[in-house]
C-alpha cells in the first residue's frame, strides 16, 4: 500500500434483502487481496455485515465507505432513514425495533449495534430522528 490509502464505496438500498450482505462480502475480498491479517479481515467483515443489515432493515438508502490505511481500516456507513431515538437503548443487547419478518431471517434481535462495538476497535455513532444515522467503525491492523 506504500502508505497510501485506498477508499471504496458501496451503495445500499433499504429493504433489498436479495443482495443484503454483498457489499460486506466485497469488502472482505478486497481486504484479503490487500493482505490484511485474516483475524482483522473477519472482524471488519462482521462489523460491515451488521451495519449493512441495519441499513437494509431500517433505512431507505445508504452508503458504505471503507478506507484502508497502512495500519488500520475505517468503515463509515451513512444512511437516510428514521434515525435512532434512543442510542443508549439501541446499544443494549436485546433491544430492537425490527419487525417480525426481520426476526424470521435471523436478525432484529437487538444485537446489531452491540456486535459492531464488540468486533471493532473504535465505534462512533451520530443519528438524527427523521434524517438518518452515521456509524464509524475503526479496526487496527495489528
Amino acid at each position, binding site marked *: 500500500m506504500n502508505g497510501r490509502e485506498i477508499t471504496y464505496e458501496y451503495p445500499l438500498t433499504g429493504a433489498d*434483502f436479495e443482495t443484503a450482505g454483498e457489499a*460486506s462480502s466485497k469488502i472482505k475480498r478486497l481486504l484479503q487481496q490487500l493482505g490484511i491479517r485474516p483475524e482483522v479481515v*473477519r472482524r471488519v467483515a462482521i462489523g460491515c455485515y451488521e451495519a449493512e443489515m441495519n441499513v437494509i432493515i431500517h433505512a431507505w438508502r445508504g452508503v458504505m465507505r471503507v478506507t484502508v490505511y497502512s495500519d488500520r481500516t475505517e468503515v463509515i456507513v451513512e444512511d437516510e432513514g428514521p434515525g435512532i431515538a434512543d442510542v443508549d437503548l439501541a446499544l443494549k443487547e436485546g433491544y430492537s425495533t425490527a419487525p417480525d419478518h426481520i426476526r424470521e*431471517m*435471523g436478525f432484529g434481535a437487538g444485537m446489531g449495534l452491540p456486535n459492531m462495538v464488540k468486533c471493532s476497535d473504535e465505534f462512533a455513532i451520530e443519528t438524527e430522528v427523521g434524517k438518518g444515522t452515521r456509524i464509524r467503525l475503526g479496526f487496527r491492523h495489528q
Partner: protein
Amino acid sequence: MTLAEILATLKAEVLCGREWLDREAAAACGADLMSDVLAFTKERTVLLTGLTNAQVIRTAEVSDLVGIVFVRGKKPGQDVIDLAKIKGIPLLSTSYPMYEACGFLYVHGLRGCSQVGDQ
C-alpha cells in the same frame, strides 16, 4: 472433526460442496439467530441451524464458517444453494432435530465455540 465425519455422524445428505468435505471443523454452533453466530462463533466453526435463507450463507461467509448443517430435514431453495456454491460453503441436511444433532456431534468430540481457544 471433518465435515465428512459430521456427514456420517448425522446421517446427513450433501446439498452442495462434496469436494470440500475434508475440511476440518474446530467447533460447532447451533443457532437460528444470525447475530449470535456473528458475535460468538470462531473461525472454522460448523453451524447447525433451522434457518434456510440467504442470510445464513452470507453470515457463514463473513464469519469464515467451515460449513452449514440444516436440521430437521430442512433444505434451502436452489437460489440459496447456488449462492453457497459461489461462496464456497458446503451445505448438509440432516433429519435429526437441532438438539439431537448437536448432541450427537458433541458426544463424538466436537466442542462448542466457548470451549475452543481464540484462533
